[in-house]
């Protein structure tokens, strides 16, 4: 499923959305410890987290994630917003918890398989 469709179906807030938003989302990874994301997330995954600082953008770049969803109403700080815009990383948000968003994404991806 394309990122743009997921944004719509999960009613995600868009902070930055890049040209790569038309790419296929390969799955998801949920977690707030950066090393675990580096170790376990796969390229094209959607990362669901409460972290909202600039290092999140770097992790997304290094792993090759499709986007980051900041949950619990967290919003990117100024530095991460600027870095995401400059480097083409999509940053999204939701007022719901990581648990809720992960559950919704799982169901959505399972339905389309």
């Amino acid at each position, binding site marked *: 499923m394309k990122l743009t469709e997921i944004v719509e179906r999960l009613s995600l807030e868009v902070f930055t959305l890049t040209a790569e938003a038309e790419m296929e989302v390969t799955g998801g990874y949920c977690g707030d410890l950066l090393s675990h994301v*580096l170790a376990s997330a796969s*390229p094209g995954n959607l990362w669901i987290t409460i972290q909202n600082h*600039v*290092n999140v*953008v*770097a*992790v997304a770049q*290094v792993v090759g994630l499709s986007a980051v969803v900041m949950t619990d109403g967290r919003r990117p700080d100024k530095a991460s917003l600027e870095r995401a815009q400059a480097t083409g990383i999509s940053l999204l948000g939701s007022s719901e918890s990581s648990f809720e968003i992960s559950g919704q994404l799982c169901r959505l991806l399972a339905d389309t398989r």
Partner: protein
Amino acid sequence: MQYAVRAGDIDRGGSASAQIKAELSRAGVDAVTARRAGIISFEGEMNLMVYAHDGGTITVTVEADAVTIEVKDLGPGIEDIDLAMTPGYSTAPDWATDLGFGAGMGLINIQKNSDLFEIHSHIGEGTTIISRIDRDGGRKGGSQEGS
């Protein structure tokens, strides 16, 4: 390529490793190798930022058959390398764990993504980590040497 990382420079955090991955891709290095180099560099960069007194340097060398990443600082040095290599063990301060660092996985992530992994550390002198990635697209499994 050489990158300087300053201690505590959170707002620039990850910029060296993101740049390293991008530069390697531009230089024609395959996606798997570039990604592994990015992960090694990120963990190294975070270690310099969180633990090293005066930051340090990341040096990347590209050869026909391998990419080598050297992460070097001048202290404080690691007292017990085996302990530092234990999954989940961390001495990160609270400000770092609040940001999602200090999972106790950094050195392990570096080793896992390396085909050759060396760590040398002495108290008061500093730490040097050398990671080599073979550009064969596959994994031979890492090996470790310490001192």
